Every structure is written in structure tokens, then in C-alpha cells.
């Protein structure tokens, strides 16, 4: 009888580790700690610091003085409209260019070569692009000289140091990013869906309109948001290629002037906060609109 081993009595439940794991908290979860610290130091802390600072006006006055000043001075509050007037059209133009190009590239065999060419501007950096555009589109640039030589214009077109200079620069630097995101969404759609639609009698436009577009909309909304945020925070090209005192006085210029020319960090923080909330408003509105579209997987079925 003694040879029969006694089974250990089940007195304890599962161990703490097992219970934590059951709630999805295991050792791998600890790997997020470096990222969390990084985000805390480089994002949460400056944001909170700036947020509080913006309510402590340099010149004294009540805690909302900075915000009141911003919204009562047209030279300041008009920067919101000016920035939006650059960022939204630029983002839309980039998307409208990226979608058809992505559709073409999707079918190509030498995809990598073309993608590399299209992505090159991302590696150049804003300042180099600005320099190039100044040389190329300036009054003495090749573009104007060529048009003058052929007698198409009688005096140089003003293409830089105004709205269009910044616009062109934002399209060039923003397009690769928009394109790469769009391409990944386009290639994520099962090509058999388009073939099925074709055998069912849908023309190329109908296939785009009824199959691709609805399946792409959520991805395009995210692409719009990310590209928009990039364009909204435009600074170097607005200074180098635009009229930083006039139509391209964007909100980041106003913030920089407050902080580094007037040495009013509190005002600068207030403008940065306003900038953040405008971006957030647009992004939330666009992402919320995704709810109107189908958001499941874009392949045929379980397969």
C-alpha cells in the first residue's frame, strides 16, 4: 500500500505567474519598458511641461492670457488658416497622385527600382529639396530660362518665395511617404477580387469604384492623417521657399518667433498646444469617418 504514491493535495490555485499570464501579462510584456521610458521622457514630459508652461504667461496676467492674446491678434490666429491652407491641399494632392501610381506600380515586375526612385526624395531632406527648388524654379533658374528661351513667357514666373514654392516642396518631400503607405494598402488587397469583379462584368472604373475604393478607404484615411501631420508641421520650407512674413507664415513660425525671438517660452508653448489641438481635431475627424466604411480584412475570405 505504501508503494502507491500520494498525489499532492491541490490546495493552491494556479501560481501568481500563471494568473498574470492568463491576463496577457507575461515576461514578454516587460519588453515594452524601454519604449515606455523613451516615450515618457521624449513625449509625455515635454508635452506636460509645455502644457503647464502655456498657462503661466511671461508678462503676468491670468492663466489664459496667452490663449486670449493668440485669438485676438490676427497676425497670430491667421496662422492656423494659413497652415491648413497649405497642409490640406498638399496632402490631398499627394494622395491623389499616390493612388494611381500605386495601382500602376502594383502590376510592375521591376517594382523595386521604381519604388527606390520615388522614395529618393525622402532621403534628401527638406533643406536640400528647398535648395534644389530655389535653383530650378527661381527667377534665374533653368525652368524660367527655358521658358524664356522658347519665348513662352516674356518675364520670369514667380514660383518661389511664395505659396507655390512651399507647396511644391511639401509635395516633393511628402509624396514618397504617402506613396509607400498607399502602395502597402493597395497591394494588401487580394487581386482575385478584381478578377472576380471583371468576370462579373465590371469595367476598370467600376472595379475601382466598387471594389478597390471601399476596401482602401480606411487605409487612405490613415495615410491622410499621417501625411497631414507631416505637412502641418512644415517649418524649413515655409521659411526657405515661402514668404514667412506673408501667406506662408505658418503656425510653427509663429511658435518659433514667440519662443526664440521674443524669448516668451510660455507664449511659444501656448501656440504649440494650439497647433497640437488643431492637428488632433482633423485627425480625429478623419479617423472617425473610417467608421462609415468596411474595415475587415481585404482578402477574399478565410480561404
Amino acid at each position, binding site marked *: 500500500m505504501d508503494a502507491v504514491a500520494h498525489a499532492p493535495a491541490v490546495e493552491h490555485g494556479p501560481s501568481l505567474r500563471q494568473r498574470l499570464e492568463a491576463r496577457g501579462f507575461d515576461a514578454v510584456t516587460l519588453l515594452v519598458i524601454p519604449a515606455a521610458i523613451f516615450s515618457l521622457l521624449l513625449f509625455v514630459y515635454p508635452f506636460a511641461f509645455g502644457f503647464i508652461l502655456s498657462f503661466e504667461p511671461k508678462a503676468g496676467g491670468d492663466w489664459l492670457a496667452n490663449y486670449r492674446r493668440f485669438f485676438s491678434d490676427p497676425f497670430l490666429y491667421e496662422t492656423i488658416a494659413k497652415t491648413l491652407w497649405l497642409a490640406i491641399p498638399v496632402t490631398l494632392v499627394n494622395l491623389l497622385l499616390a493612388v494611381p501610381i500605386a495601382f500602376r506600380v502594383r502590376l510592375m515586375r521591376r517594382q523595386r527600382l521604381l519604388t527606390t526612385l520615388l522614395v529618393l526624395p525622402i532621403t534628401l531632406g527638406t533643406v536640400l529639396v528647398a535648395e534644389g527648388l530655389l535653383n530650378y524654379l527661381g527667377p534665374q533658374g533653368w525652368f524660367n530660362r527655358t521658358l524664356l528661351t522658347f519665348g513662352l513667357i516674356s518675364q520670369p514666373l514667380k514660383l518661389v518665395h511664395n505659396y507655390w514654392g512651399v507647396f511644391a516642396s511639401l509635395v516633393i518631400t511628402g509624396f514618397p511617404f504617402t506613396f509607400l503607405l498607399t502602395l502597402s494598402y493597395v497591394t494588401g488587397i487580394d487581386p482575385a*477580387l478584381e*478578377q*472576380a469583379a*471583371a*468576370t462579373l462584368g465590371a469595367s476598370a472604373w467600376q472595379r475601382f469604384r466598387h471594389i478597390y475604393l471601399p476596401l482602401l478607404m480606411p487605409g487612405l484615411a490613415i495615410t491622410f492623417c499621417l501625411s497631414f501631420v507631416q505637412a502641418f508641421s512644415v517649418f524649413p520650407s515655409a521659411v526657405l521657399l515661402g514668404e514667412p512674413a506673408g501667406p506662408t507664415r505658418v503656425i510653427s513660425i509663429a511658435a518659433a518667433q514667440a519662443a526664440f525671438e521674443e524669448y516668451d517660452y510660455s507664449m511659444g508653448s501656448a501656440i504649440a498646444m494650439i497647433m497640437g489641438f488643431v492637428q488632433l481635431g482633423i485627425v480625429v475627424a478623419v479617423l472617425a469617418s473610417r467608421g462609415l466604411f468596411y474595415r475587415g480584412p481585404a482578402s*477574399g475570405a478565410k*480561404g
Partner: protein
Amino acid sequence: MTIALSQFDEVRLDRVSRDFGALNALRDVSLTIRRGEFIALLGPSGCGKSTTLNCIAGLLPVTGGAIWLDKNRVDTLRPEERGFGMVFQNYALFPHLNVRQNIGFGLKMRGRPKAEIDRKVDEALSLVRLQGQENKLPGQLSGGQQQRVAIARAIVIEPPLVLMDEPLSNLDAKLRLEMRAEIRRIHNELGATTIYVTHDQDEALSLADRIVVLRDGVVRQVGAPKELYEAPAHFDVADFMGFRNKLRGKVVAVEGDRTILDVEGARISGVARERVSVGSTAYAAIRSDDLEVGEAGPNAIAATVDTIEYRGREFVGTAHSAGGLDFVFRSHVSVEPGSRIHLRTEDERILVFAEPVQGRQ
């Protein structure tokens, strides 16, 4: 039933070829399909059967030859202009449209009035027995239900020709049998001319009026299921039709149809399906169902049992001969692995083929 399929007399493939660079995926495939026929394209993977289907559907341009629908040439048309219904291997249901919208898609693209679309979709739903599921998205359906939607979507546009690309390969074994019967029933009800691609000989045999066996982009044999099953014209067709035992030997005598082979010293006599001459190498092909455990004697060959499996009604075993030939056989009694047995069958169950020429012919 008011789903009435467009009428025509025949679809004709006239020396259709398709090259992918240097690779000839299809070479001079000619085939005539009559109205109402159910044709199965059968072959191993890479034989060109899906390529043929895609060429007919217009999803792949042909690189040679022509496809005719009666007097109209269709291979120059875009897929949306051909109006053939196609069922894809992964169903390719539109994930953002519900069942009703998926099925009605083709009619909507044709600009049909809403009342007509609703009526036809209802009929298609009842034909594939999916009433009550019409507002679900494809992701909410089981594999078999998705398959039914795919079929309904292809036939509701009333195509002259229905193309099916291995439609059952994604289903489990039980559902596959069920859907096979469904496809047959729908074909019987509508009489839709169908081209069905499969690599499964059972599917082809049970569904098709005629089977086209393809290999390396070439048509090897066309015929009724019974014809192909009982009298395969080539060694590779026999291989595909379940002749799993292939005994290599020397021809010792030819007497009319009857050919006698010497296989590892045993005399095997069978019916020649190809011309063979005395002294040449040939193959005797025997179905595993026909090879039984028996006595030594004519048409018997000695073998050692490797494995034996219980299959309910009978046992299925594998064995090998002293010369290294492998056998699959059946038996009513269990035999011990490792034991020596004799495997035998009747003369008329043995088909003799010439040794295949290596490589593409």
C-alpha cells in the same frame, strides 16, 4: 426557374497556346465543348489546367490560337466583355459586401433595374439554399456557405459558360463530398455548360460528362469518365486514374491485344494500350483495387508485406518485391508485415504501356 442561361451551341478552343517567357504553359490545346456539357480539366499541378481556365475567362491573354463561342471570337475580348461566370479557388467574395450584394454585383454592374436584381438574387439564393443568410458578410459564413455564395454569384448573371477553378479544394473532406453533390444538382437544374478544373480524379469522375486530362500543357486524353477509367490511353493517364502499381518488365510475346511481360522472372500478361514490340521495355499497370493476395501461378508475383491498414470493409497494404518494385494491394484478410505473399490479378485487369519517352514529347 427563370435563371435562363444564354444559349449557344459550342465553345471551341482552337490550338490555344500560352507562354510565360520561355515556358510553354499550354501548347496547341484544341477542345470543343458542347452546350450543357460538364467538362473536367484534370491533371497534376503545373499541367496547365488553371492556365486554360484563366485563358478562357480572359484573365490571362492567350499567346497563340483562338477561342470561339459559336461564330464569335472571344479571346480578343476583355474579361468583362465575355460574360462568363467564374468560381475562384479562394471564392474571391467581396469582403465589404453582404451576401445579397455579392450575388447581385454582376447584375448591378450591368445596370439592371433593382426589382429584377432582387428577384434574380432571391432565386439564386434559393437555388444554392442560402435563404436567411443574405445580410451576412462573407467573413461571417462557413467555408461551404462561402462556396455557395461564389456559385450563386457566378450563375446569377446567366453566363453561357461557368468556369470553376478547384472550387472544393479549400473544404474539408466531408463538406467536399456534400458540395460535390450540390454542384452536380445545380448543374442538373440549370444545365449550365461548365468547365471544372481539378486535380482530384474522384471529383472529375463523379461530376463530369467528359474529362480532359492535361499534362505539361498538352491534352493527353479526352473522354467520358468510364472510358478514361477503364481504358486510359497513356501511361501517365493511367497513373492519374488510380493505376498505382507499375510493373516494369520486358516484352516476351505479343499475341494480338494480349502482351506477355517478364517482370522479375514472373510472367504477367495483360492488354496492350499502346504498341509494344517483343524485346522492348514496357509497363504493366494494375489498380490497387485489383491486386489481391493469392496463390503462386500465372500473373502472380512474389512480394514482402511492408504495411497493412484496416479500412473497414477490407485491408489495404503495401509490399515490395525482391527486385525493388513497390505494390499497393487490397486484401480481405490481414497479413503480417514482413510475411511473404503472392500478389495476383486477372489478365483483363492489367494494362500494358510502352515505356514513356523521357521529358516533354
